[in-house]
Every structure is written in structure tokens, then in C-alpha cells.
């Protein structure tokens, strides 16, 4: 059973993160967008959700709000590479909405894994 859900519209980023988590001994599922994430969430529960902010259809904020409402126990880590507006603003806003941690792309992989590990540990 995967403990971590990775939501990112960038296919390479998704697979990279899953590989990285796997190397660290963390199982992770991936979703390309909010819809896919929702269907996954409805079938299984995740302890930590790592989500990108800027995505088509359903953006990171919607996912955060959805998670906060439906799965308040799930820790959220927001990642963003920045967009046409200020990248850090998104992360700041996300922080304001009560995400556990934010990371700016390009990601500091080790820090992210450490944070996720920490969140998993904290849950257990």
C-alpha cells in the first residue's frame, strides 16, 4: 500500500519523484492531475500528498482545499516551479492554507524526502 501520492502534470517529474521515493524506501503512487488524484484517493488512503500547484483542470489549491475538507488527516507538501506569476506567492499561499511543507522547484530532493519521511514517521 502506497503511503505517498504524487500529483504533478509533468510526467518526468512524477516518475522522478516516485523513483526517488522508492530509492529512499517510500512507496508512492502518481497522479497526472486532480481528477486522477481524486479517483485514487477514493480507492485508497495516503498519508502524505505531494502536489504541484500549477496544473491544468484542477490546480494545486483546489486539491489542497479538497484534501483539507475530505481528508484532514493527510499531510500535504506543496511543490511549485513558479509560473507566470510569482512562484513563491503560490507556495506562500499554500502555506497559508495549512500545508505541511513547501518546496520550490527545482527540488532539493533530499530535503523533500527527509520531510516526507518525517511526516510519515510523525503519522505513525
Amino acid at each position, binding site marked *: 500500500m502506497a503511503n505517498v501520492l504524487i500529483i504533478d502534470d*509533468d510526467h*518526468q*517529474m512524477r516518475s*522522478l*519523484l516516485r*523513483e*526517488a521515493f522508492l*530509492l529512499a524506501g517510500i512507496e508512492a503512487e502518481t497522479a497526472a492531475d486532480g481528477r486522477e488524484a481524486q479517483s485514487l484517493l477514493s480507492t485508497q488512503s495516503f498519508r502524505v500528498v505531494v502536489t504541484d500547484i*500549477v496544473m491544468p483542470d484542477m490546480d494545486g489549491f483546489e486539491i489542497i482545499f479538497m484534501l*483539507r475538507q475530505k481528508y484532514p488527516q493527510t499531510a500535504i507538501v506543496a511543490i511549485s*516551479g*513558479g*509560473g*507566470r*506569476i*510569482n*512562484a*513563491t*506567492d503560490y507556495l*506562500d*499561499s499554500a*502555506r*497559508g*492554507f*495549512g500545508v505541511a511543507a513547501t518546496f520550490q*522547484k*527545482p*527540488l532539493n*530532493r533530499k530535503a523533500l524526502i527527509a520531510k516526507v519521511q518525517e511526516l510519515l514517521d510523525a503519522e505513525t
Partner: protein
Amino acid sequence: MIWKAMDSTFFWLTLGAFLLCLVFTLSLGISFSSSRTFRNALDRSFLLIIALVTLWNFISILEQIPFLGMDLKLLFFRWSSSIWIFLGVATYDFLRKLASAPRTWRTDAMLVIASLSSVWTVFFPHAISRVSEGPFGFFAIPGAELFPIMLANNLAPVTWGLVLIFRRIPLASTEELRPLHMTLWVTPIVLVLSQLLSGALPLLGYPEWSKLGSMGLTILVAIYYFATLSREDTSISVSQAAKSLFQEMTDGIILTDLEGVIDQINPAGARLLGRSQETMVGKTLSAFIPQFREDQWYQDYPFHFQQAGRNVSCNLTSVLQKNKGIPYGRMLILRDTSDLVELRRRSQNIQESLDQQSAERILALKEAHERIRAREQQLQSLLDNLPFQVHLKDSRGQYIMQNRLDRERRGNLLGFNLDSADLPLEFKEEAQKGDAVALKGGEYDEDFAIEENGQQEHFRSIKRPIRGSSGEIEAILGILMDVTAMHRLEQERMEFKERLLRSHKMEAIGTLAGGIAHDFNNILGALTGYCELAAETLPAEAPAQKYLKESLIAAERGRQLVQQILTFSRQGEKTSKPVAVAFTIRETLSLLRVNSPKRVQIQTMVPPHEVYILGDPVELHRIIMNLCTNALHAMRDNGGKLSVSCEEHSTPIPTTQWGLQLPAGQWICIEISDTGIGIPEENLPRIFDPFFTTKKTTEGSGLGLSVVHGLLQDWGGYIAVRSRKDEGSTFRIYLPALQRRQRATDQQESFATAVLLQLRDASLQQKIQDAFSGRSVRWMSLRSLEDIPRLWRVNPWHLAVFNQAELDLPFELLFQQWRSQGIQSSFVVFSEKADPQDLNFLEQVSLLPPNTSQEEIQTTLRKFLWPTS
């Protein structure tokens, strides 16, 4: 013998006298018939005397013819006696004429009596004398009846004639009448002498010589008469000319006697008076000209009268006619002036109409002159008020007109030409060029500059030919416009345009770069991630490790580049807070000193007290680092001096500094100056362009200065550069200074600030403010939510307190909006409806019901204001 009876001496003497008198008679007769001189009358009288003497002598000869009977001789004697009586009358007549005495009834009567006496004597010889027969024929013996007849017929007329002569003598005393004077004297003397001789010689016993004496004296008179009086005679031609003139003259000539009776009138005179000559002669002139009076003198006296229904005007001049000084009549000259008067009248009319025309013309001229003067005045005033200099030169180059501005700027040039005028050389050269073009009929428009008092002044010179009516170039119009201000504006406009263009370009690049950066970040993330994974999964000694490491370095460079692009396009992370400028400069330079080349001297000049700007300390650090690195790079080979200074700069009004348009305000001016190689002039306009670099590809991306430029723009700052090749470059940065008061609040971190929107609920407001009575919280009141972003920029606070009931929008929306504007405040919101679940997850927001106790309010506020305590 009767022949013998006649004394031969007497006979011959008588015959001689006869012949001589015959000669005289004939000569006088010829002269009389051929001459029409005014002397005719006199000649006639003289001729009569001579003829009578001739006749007498002839009869005297007949008397003495021997074979004639006594009766016949007696008859001849009587005839000769009657001739004597005639002779007396004729002598009187001659003397009268010689004395220019008028003919009177008395003389006429005497002539009649004399004629009757002669006839009577012939037919009744015994009535007057007794005839005796003497030695020389018959002779009359004075009888009692003879003397009265003698007295009446011979002696009386002669005596009367002598009286007239003697009266006449004093009148002929003038110089011109001297010959007449002599004649008047000589004539009576001779007459008396001849009478005396005729009487005395017989008495003295020489009766036969008596004839000789009187005859000799008669001859003397005749000779003298011819000798003197003939000289007075005018020539025949002149008298003919006078006569013809009299006939042909257009002026009327009327000759009258002294009583005004017309004696002669010429055709012109008769025509003028509308009568025939014949009807007028013998009548007085006043019968024809009523106004005329014969006792008055006239000199061009105008007469007007009606004649055959026509107005006749004439001028009358009367001239007294004199003969031998004796007035005998008048000559009246009538000059027809009708035409002249008519002509004068017409001429007067013409003159009047001319006067009127001329008056009208003068009036029109005056008006025209007035109009021209007014026009001229307007023109002059227009010229004088023109904002540029205008002058006129004639075709020889002499100034003939200047407007006021021209006079003020260049002085009075009238009458001067280019050579003589006191003008700067540049003006003269320019004017010469322009004049040459205009004189050929061309139009000249040229800008030129002159240096005056170290300042460039720009002028536009316009020259135009001015042609006269014949098409000849008469003058040159010159206009001189001071276009210095225009020139400066044009330059500024160009600079502004260039800056605007650059700004647009950079914005476009920024937008593009920002778009790429997002995707590029993801790509780099994947690249880095997989490389790291590969490195971790490979054995440490694997040769690929080295390659992966290089890949990661490259990826890192990529990441940095993206970061710079994001910064440049204002999409990177940035904060806005007070930055201590002097501190940042010192810190940056201390870092630089470590790595700077030995030959570079670094100098810092910062104010003793700290100065602040609103920005990001990290970015300011980067900016200074960037510029200093460039400076050091420029001095890498030759060394030099790097100066970094910082000073406060105040511009009370908008100012231009280093080509930058600084708004009014307080500025922090940072200057970074090196003595390096300088920036080539052609590169200067491009150094702030993104990706412009002179460094080798390995040394820099070219984003440096454009990033600096972008950051400074975000902070409301400016940057300018001055550089000279091989002398170095100086960058100058202007950033808006933070006011001291604001800085004070920032420096005292412990002094908390809070914002409270003016609450309508006064009790709630009181409750909140009372919660911190005595505590160090500075409350700022807000009237409107719109002031929030502005207030935040100038004076950031820690906490803001609102009452949802008094907000128009849900707080959640406002919050998101403020966050996006970079407002990092905490919020306490009083809200009745608020679901704590909705907003409480926000760490910086606390929702409190309006009826919260003062104690609870105090606790909540303190949590936000002093989180650490």
C-alpha cells in the same frame, strides 16, 4: 514897240520865276500823286501856293507880250491881281496847316470871300483898283476901295496865319520837333521879308528887281521846306504797311476827331460793331457804344454789349493822335475779347473742375496714405511681436529693416552690411551662405549652432528672396529662430524614446523568459533528479560518476540562469523591506576584497549614519556585487581603483541627473566607479539589454546588468552609466530613500504596530484599544480598506484588526488579494457568522466573535503581536 515897251530884265526874271515855279509845281504834283503820306495836306497847301505863284508869273508874262492889245493885257493883269488874293488865302491855309490849327468856319468863310473877291475882280476890275500903265506894263494903284479888299483877302489871312504860327511855336519846343520849330520860325520871317522886299525895291528905284527879291526868298522857303520837312516823311512802304495793317487788322481801329466823330474805321472795327464802314463814318462813336465817353481815356477797358443777339466783349484802348505834337483826334483800338472771355470762362470751369478733382484726389490719397500707415503699423507691430528675429536686406546686402527681437538680440544693424556689422563670425558665415542662395532666387533653410558663453545655441536661418514688381530681386528676407529649446526637447524626446523602447523590449523578453522558465525548471528538475539518482545507484568508483557530476554542475548552472531570468522578469522571489544601504555596501565590499586582484585598490565612502531604502537586502547585495565584479573584471589586467560611494541626495523638484528624469524626493545615490578599460561607446546603449555581454561565454550569461536594471525599476530606482574608453566606467544608482520616521519604527522591532479599521461599533473599538492600554502598541486608524496596500508599503505593521460586519467583501477574498500584494500581516477578524473551520487553518488569521471578552481579545492579540514571548 510893245516888245520894247517891256523891260527885258523884268521879263526874264518873270519868265525865270515862272519856270522855276513850274518845276516846283510839277515836282510837288508828282510827289502828291504818288505819295500818301500824312503830310499830304500840307503839301497840298504848299502846292497850291506854288501853283498860284506859277500861274501869276505866267499871267505876268502874258501881260507883257508886246503884240497883245491893251484890253487883253488889262484882263491878264486883273487875273494876276485875283491870283494875289487867292495867294493870300492859300498862304493862310498853308500857315494854318503848318501850325496844325483846326479848320474853322472863319477860315472857310475867309476862303469863300477870297474866292468871290477874285471872281469879282476879274469881272469888275475897276471895283477894287485903278489900273495904271507904268514902265513895266499895268499896275494897280491902291484906291479907296482896294485896301479893304486887300486887308480882307490878302493881308488878313496872312496875318491870321502868322498868329497861328506864333501860337504854335511854343508847342513845338520839344527836341523831336526841332525841325518843325525852325520851319515855323523861318516861314513867317521869309514871308515878311519877301513882302517888305516886294514893296521896298520899287520904292528905292529898282522896281524891276522887286520880283527877284520876293522870288529869291520864295525859293529859299521852298528849298528849306524840302530840306527839313522831307526828313520827317516816313517811307512809302511803311505807310503802305500801316494802311494794309489798318485794313487787315483783327482789332478794330477807329479814328475820331477830338469831338469823337468817326473819321475812319477799319473793317474789323465795323464788323465788331455790326455796321458797315460807310454808315459809321461821320457819326459819334457813342452812338454805337453807349457807354463810351469821348472825354475819357481808356486803357484795355472792358466793354460788354449785345450785338446781333450775341454777347460781345471787347477791350477798348484810346490813344490820342497828335500831329507835330498837336492833338487832333483819337485812335480807338477795340480788341475783341469775346473768345478770350469765353476761353477764360471755360478755363475757369476747367480750373474749378480740376481743383475739385485734385481736392478729391488729395482726399483719396490722404485716405490711402492713412490706410497704408495703419497697415504699416499693424505690420510693424506684428513683426515686433513675432517670437523670432526678422530682418530685411537690400540687394546690396545692407540691412534695411529689423524687428524688435532682432534689434534686441543683435543691436541696430540698419545701414550696415555683413562686413561692417558687429556680429559673431558664425552668424556672418551662415548669413553669407543664405544670402548667396536667396540672391539666386533660391530658398534657404538651415540649422546651425554657435557657442556662446560655453553654451550651445541653436538657430534656424531662413532666407527668402523678395521680388519687386519687375521680378528683380529687391531684397532678402531673413528669419532667425532660436531653436535651442526645441533642439533640447528633441534630444530629450529621442532619449526618452530610446528608453521606452528598451523598456518595452525588456518587458517582452521578461514575459517570454518567464513563460519558458516554468517549464525549464521542471526539465531541469527532472534532469538533476535523475542524475542524482543515477549517481546514488552507481557504485562510487564507477567512471560514470564523474560524468554525472559534470551533468549536475551543468544543471546547476541552468538552474541559476532560470533564477536570474525569473528575477529579471519579476517573477522570482522578492521582498520589499527596509534595507540598510551602507551596511550592505560595507558587507559586500568586505566579501569582494577577499577575491579582488592585488593591484586593485578598493575605496568605500558611505555616510556615518545608516541610510535606508525599501527593497531586498539580498538583491541589493547582488546588485552591488554584480557591478563591482564587472568593475574588477574591467581592471583585471591593469589594476586600478574601485570606488563605491553612497550619499543622500535630495531633489525638491523633478531634476535631470545623468540623463535620468528624477522625480522630486529623497534619494540614496550609490556610485560604483572603476578605472578600468571602460565600455566602448557603441555598447553603452545596450549594456542593460538582457543577454548582452562582452565576456566570454564561460564567464557570464549576460543577464547581469539587465537583472540589475529590472530590480532597480521594481524598487522605483534608476541606474545610469558614464564611461570613457581606457579611463573607466561609473555606474550611478538612485533609489528612493526611506524616511527617517519610518526607519525608526522598523529599527525598534519590539515596538509593535497594529492597524485598526475605524469601527462603527464604538464599544468594540474601545474594547480593543483598552486591551492594550499602557502597552507598547501603536494603533493606526484606517478610514478605508483601499488604503491598506499603500500603508503597507510605507509603514508595514504587525497586525490588522477588522470587523467583518463592517466589511463589504468576505474577509477570505480580501485576505487572498492582500496576500497576492505581498501584505504579510496577521489578522484578527471579529465575525459573527464566521465558521472557524473555514479560516482558522490560516496561521495568521484569528476569527473572534464580537462578544469575546476583553481578556480573550487581549490574549489573541498578544499571540500575534509578540509571538515569541
